[in-house]
């Protein structure tokens, strides 16, 4: 018996291409049992892949957007915290942010290696620069710490 495919109608969902941590990769080498696999079918997407600010999933929109995906992209932070672009930009443009990650309070930076950050890299550089300029006159221990942490390059 042989099969000649005459037509295919494929359905796919899109997802953000977020590089996995090495710890996750190790975990992936362990073969799940069949029962676990059945469970995984339903639960794999239930991971806490949510924006640290709006708490909406990465593949959902932030509160100010209509369409997900290219309409509402995400960025990956060097500190392993990820956000919707609009959420983190809004956060960074507030005075209280001081250019820090809202979750870990480290200086926020984009992961340069991540392809997902590429379209936003330049924009964020400018934004972080302006935050730095804004923060210099204020002085204080915190700004110094941020510089030490490599937030401002």
């Amino acid at each position, binding site marked *: *018996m*042989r*099969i*000649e*495919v*005459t*037509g*295919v*109608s*494929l*359905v*796919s*969902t*899109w*997802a*953000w*291409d977020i590089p996995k941590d090495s710890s996750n990769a190790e975990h992936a080498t362990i073969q799940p049992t*069949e029962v676990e*696999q*059945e469970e*995984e*079918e*339903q*639960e*794999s*997407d*239930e991971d806490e892949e949510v924006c640290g600010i709006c708490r909406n*999933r990465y*593949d*959902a929109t932030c509160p100010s957007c*209509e*369409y*997900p*995906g*290219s309409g509402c*992209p*995400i960025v990956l932070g060097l500190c392993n915290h990820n956000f919707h672009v609009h959420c983190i930009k809004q956060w960074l443009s507030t005075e209280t942010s001081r250019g820090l990650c809202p979750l870990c309070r480290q200086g926020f930076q984009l992961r340069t290696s*991540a*392809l*997902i*950050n*590429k*379209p936003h890299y330049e924009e964020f550089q400018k934004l972080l620069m302006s935050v730095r300029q804004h923060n210099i006159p204020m002085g204080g221990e915190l700004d110094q710490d941020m510089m030490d942490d490599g937030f401002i390059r």
Partner: protein
Amino acid sequence: MSKIDEELQLLHQKIVLCVTPNSEDEIDIVLSWLSPTFQPQIPTLRIKQCLKVVFERSDERARFLIEQYYLTLIRTHFFSQFDAIVNWRDMVRLERLYLSKVEFILGAPVYWIQDEIVSFKRVLMNKNIEFKKRLHAKLEAHILDNDLDRFNQLYQWLAPAFDGQEIEFNAKMINLKVDQLSQELMKNNVDDRYLVMNTYNHFIKDFWSKFYKSLITEDDHELTAIIYQSFEKNYTKYKCDEFYTKIVPQFPASRKCLLELRSILNKDIKTVGAKVLENLYHGFVSRFLTSSLLTCEILYFYIKTVKCLKIIDPMGMCLRSLSKAVRKYLNSRPDLITTLVLGIFPLHHDERIKVACVSDGNSIHFQKLEQFAKEVGDFSLGPELPTALPWFHQPHLPRCTYDGNDELLKQYLNWVPEPPRIRLDVEEPEDNDVKYVPPADLIHVLLDTLESKRALVDDLLSVVSGKFIESEEYTLDSEWQKIMNILLNHLEATRKGAVTSEEDDLTHLNDVDIMLEDLKLSSRFRNQVAHKNNAYIGSFPHVKILSKLYWRHYQSLNGRLITSKRKWNDEMKPLVDNLTSIYEVLNVGRTLKFDTGSSSRVSFNMILNSGETKSFKVTMEQYLVISHFQSEANGEVGQERHGMTTMGNHSLPDRHHTLTSLHHLTSIPKTKLLTILSFWKQKGVVLEHPEGYFGIKDET
């Protein structure tokens, strides 16, 4: 001796004194003969001679006294027979008897005896109940049998004795005929239009033209108008009685009947119309809102009733109350949403069973559900009715035209009176001030049965999203597109605040927007792929890329997202890899996760070793499983090309598989594999060997 005997004796003596002497014997004989009981009735020769003698010798006074004597005799006789007179013929016999002797003496009936007979009839009609009853029954029978000659004869006999009751009697007879004709021609007839007019014409032609001549001196137009109204009243009564037994079940065949009823009710909507609609409301509640009927049956009759009510109650007076009652009753039923979903969507039978099984479908009766779904049909409430003011749109009729810019004047000239505000007693007082807009289509009627529309719209979106995914193209077929449009209209109305909105409605609207945007982007991606003219992709045009979170198709009952992760076979892998890489180039930072589950479809020809070719269109999972049964030569080609081992590790022949080997090849759970293999077994392709492995049927 009684008083009558004394009176008769006194009169006898007076007569003897008045008549010329020596005639006593003749007088005795004549007076004896005058008695109604005297036999023989026909006078003998001797009696005739005596009569001649007596009347020749008597003067005016004597004759008057003889008349008085005779009247006393027949009165005595009449009242002695009074209770025995029960039939019309009894009285006719007596009348003849009383008249016959007078006629013999005087040659013709005279006024005094005529008056006496009329008095007798009057007394009979007033005092003898049995006689009156039987006479009326006889007259009614003649009327009903259309035997107007006999009726006329009887009526003329009775007419002088009516004593002012003739109007009441005539009205009774007319009503009788009206009722008879109404029953014959209107009852159980829901197919014909102008039924009232035709019945009335029948009445006028066959009955009234003869009837009025005998009763009434001239044709009274006011009376005929009242008769016409009686026909209308009867029509309304019959149609009210038949509303749920004939009109509603036979709709749309009964549409003509409803239009006629509507025209009658419109004449007096405030009293007659409101009363009829109130009766219809109570009729529906008592007949259909009962626990003995299934939800789909109630909804079926509700839909039919709404279609009918839309004609006779365009302002929605009854419908408003009815929808409230139905909503209140049905919302306690757990299968309401499922029934609505199954009824609204043009699902196939097996799809219906699937939906029914997901929820508690035990109470679903599929045959009755089919009936309900058929009735919902295209969601329309039937053909449009003529406008309320048809003359308003008749250009040939004279009307004021104004082409100027004065808006106020234009508004004044185009003003149309508001419909009267009627309130049924069944309405609750607190709702009276809320402006009610009758539903425009059946989807609104059905949505109106729900206290909260959230659950239904949820289900609705879930089914529509499934249909979008299953569809070959990026659009729905016309039938489903119609549902989608209705859904969008509802959601748009929610956005504009035209209908009562719930918070979730806006979420629904957002989801629909994203679904449509996904399809648009998928179509664009397909064009981009086609533009690149990729060798693998050229023949596989349909790719749908979805935002999973917004497609309810991917949500399980508990709201979790479902994904299927299967291993591609050698034929599909390069295809999906290529598509993914193109997508990743076009959409930086994003990748594709193809659904290997039931959403993706594959069409293929299966060429068996016997040379037979079978065509299939199956889900990706079903395809992936069967593809591993391909003969060895095909498998080897695949292995060489992609450097993969597919079947080499197994002791069984290459085209045979156990559940475990298939699980390793496809990553499909074994329970699911069994279902898929059972599908192929049903198709006659796969055979299960007693040893526990599976193989292709024609090769075993």
